[in-house]
């Protein structure tokens, strides 16, 4: 067992930052010792959740839990430790014709983190959340006991752990079902829409496309409100299975605070929207570029300056989505707090996990630089979201209130009760779990 050391950690939003005692176990017995130690802890793997869900004054780093344990090339089943990243799985198995059944917008997340946040991707409307491709995982309970969880075995703990933000135990390893693929390329179609109504209509009409997501111009007002570039995709037939050999850019320093203001954000959004002239554009992209456009800029989170940023992501049930989204966009544009990156997606039906985020409806994600006047605005948006029956994504959240959480996630009590039964309350906690009272 390695000695612990104090280090400065934060989530991807770089807000908040704190000094934490970090433990780097390399096998199960070491993790048990960490859990036996005094005080609570939370697993912090690649630190890609945006807010404070993987932060506490004691964190368990998983960089040594990074072994691929087994692979069945006939069926595409892979078993790996929880610290292995999706990027590593892609690197190893894409050339052999296998890809993730579900992937979020970055490949630099760990398998354990993908389970804990039950992440979703551009194919959620067809393929559901990450947990859908999880056959089973090994979980170390707060007591130190290791159990196997699957939809059939310890099913209750399985459903609480997928989406459970690391609060039920430490995920040691997982068995995943990969999806076969005959090309590493995606046939893309980009549709330019004129307003929110049209954006929704195209989303509805594109249900048979396996991948869909829209970039939305959040500063467009009035008749233009909700204008978007809807990016549809499906696996290409050919092009080969190779990985691209190129080096990405890295943002080396924080950009100054004034980089972001109404004018620059407005200009960027305007140009991005108008750069595409045709109403429909086709192109073929490598899937790494299609799924992970931002992964090619290392540390893009420094774009928002030293104070950091947060991503506000919510979902509103389909029937109320239109009203809810209009209301949210109105308030944002009134407040003049634009966002470079606004992403809209129509999600498929909810699953049976306690705290998984998706439900059938539209989800919108916006990045905001941290600043004083942001928090009152987000409180206001919370109310709009809740009034329309929606909720906020835990993997992005850094500030929602206990009431907002409980109203958005009605199964919170069930989750808390399970944590109680497992003795997790005193052992596993994050700044987020304490704020939300789970």
């Amino acid at each position, binding site marked *: 067992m*390695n000695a612990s*050391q104090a280090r*400065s950690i934060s989530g991807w939003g770089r807000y908040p930052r704190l000094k934490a005692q970090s433990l*780097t176990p*390399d096998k199960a017995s070491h993790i048990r010792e960490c859990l036996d130690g005094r005080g609570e802890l939370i697993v912090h793997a690649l630190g890609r959740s945006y807010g404070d869900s993987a932060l506490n004054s004691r964190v368990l780093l998983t960089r040594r839990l990074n*072994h691929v*344990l087994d692979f069945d090339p006939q069926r595409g089943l892979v078993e790996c430790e929880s610290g292995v990243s999706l990027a590593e799985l892609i690197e*190893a198995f894409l050339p052999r014709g296998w890809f993730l059944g579900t992937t979020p917008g970055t490949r630099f997340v760990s398998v354990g983190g993908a389970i804990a946040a039950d992440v979703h991707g551009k194919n959620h409307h067809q393929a559901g959340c990450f947990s859908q491709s999880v056959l089973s995982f090994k979980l170390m309970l707060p007591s130190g006991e290791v159990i196997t969880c699957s939809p059939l075995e310890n099913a209750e703990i399985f459903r609480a752990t997928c989406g459970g933000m690391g609060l039920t135990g430490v995920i040691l390893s997982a068995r995943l079902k990969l999806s076969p693929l005959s090309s590493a390329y995606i046939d893309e179609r980009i549709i330019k829409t004129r307003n929110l109504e049209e954006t929704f209509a195209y989303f509805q009409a594109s249900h048979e496309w396996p991948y869909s997501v829209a970039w939305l111009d959040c500063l467009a007002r009035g008749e233009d409100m909700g204008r978007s570039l809807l990016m549809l995709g499906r696996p290409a037939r050919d092009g080969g299975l190779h990985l691209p050999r190129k080096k990405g850019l890295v943002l080396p320093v924080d950009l100054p605070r004034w980089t972001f203001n109404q004018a620059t954000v407005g200009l960027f959004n305007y140009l991005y929207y108008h750069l595409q002239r045709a109403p429909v554009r086709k192109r073929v992209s490598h899937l790494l570029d299609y799924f992970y456009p931002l992964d090619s800029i290392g540390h893009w989170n420094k774009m928002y300056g030293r104070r950091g940023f947060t991503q506000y992501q919510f979902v509103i049930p389909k029937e109320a989505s239109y009203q809810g989204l209009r209301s949210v966009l109105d308030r944002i544009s009134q407040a003049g707090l634009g966002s470079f990156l606004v992403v809209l997606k129509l999600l498929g039906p909810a699953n049976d996990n306690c705290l998984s985020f998706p439900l059938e409806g539209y989800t919108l994600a916006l990045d905001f630089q941290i600043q004083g006047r942001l928090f009152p605005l987000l409180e206001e948006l919370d109310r709009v979201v809740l009034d329309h029956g929606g909720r906020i994504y835990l993997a992005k959240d850094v500030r929602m209130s206990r009431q907002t959480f409980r109203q958005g996630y009605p199964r919170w009590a069930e989750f808390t009760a399970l944590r109680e039964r497992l003795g997790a309350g005193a052992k596993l906690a994050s700044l987020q779990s304490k704020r939300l009272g789970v």
Partner: protein
Amino acid sequence: MHLLVLGANSDIAQAAAAVFARQEGAHLYLASRDLESLERRAKDLELRYQVKTEVLAFDALDYASHAGFYQRLDPKPDGVLLAFGFMGEQSRSQRDFEQARRVLEVNLMAAVSILEIVAADFEAKGRGFIIGLASPAGERGRQSNYIYGTAKGGLIVYLSGLRHRLHRSGVRVLTVLPGFVNTKMTQGLDLPGLLVAEPEEAARDIYRAFKRGKDRVYSKWFWRYIMLIIRWLPERVFKRTNL
């Protein structure tokens, strides 16, 4: 290509082994004392990169076993990555000669013992490469780390001599000088965050230097300039510093 990794449980060694497996399809002899955790890593590398691996027991300090160890390798490796090392704690090395001896033996004596055996084979065949992990600590004795520095300094001189000798046989020797790397060895040390590299970065630097046929490489690159300054500080200034 067959690559023999000595001290294969080291973080830098494992990251470098992965790069050679990925880029060269290198089959790997992974040698170390702790075989249990090495077996897991071997399986991992096989699954990821579809290479063959063999896990071998190797005790750097059991000099007498080295010849037999190398003899049993079949086929013989095309290259060797020497990555075992032991840092110890400076203050303890000052008080406890047994630890000081261990630092000197693991980092220097053991390297001489096994690499002379490897060098003889490579020299006879007229091909092969040797990559040795030394340390900038070996470039100037500093109060905070001079026992380890002495051993690594010896290794630097040794590798440079070996390179000189093997040059005419077409055998290449690469000396690697990794600065602060986030590994088991440095865990618990309070290192300046900005200067600390990940093992994967060190591995990339090693592989790039190998491909370019370099003799010596710092990882990361800026250590070259830091060490330039540290090496050239006049002694009367240097001895007043807290380095």
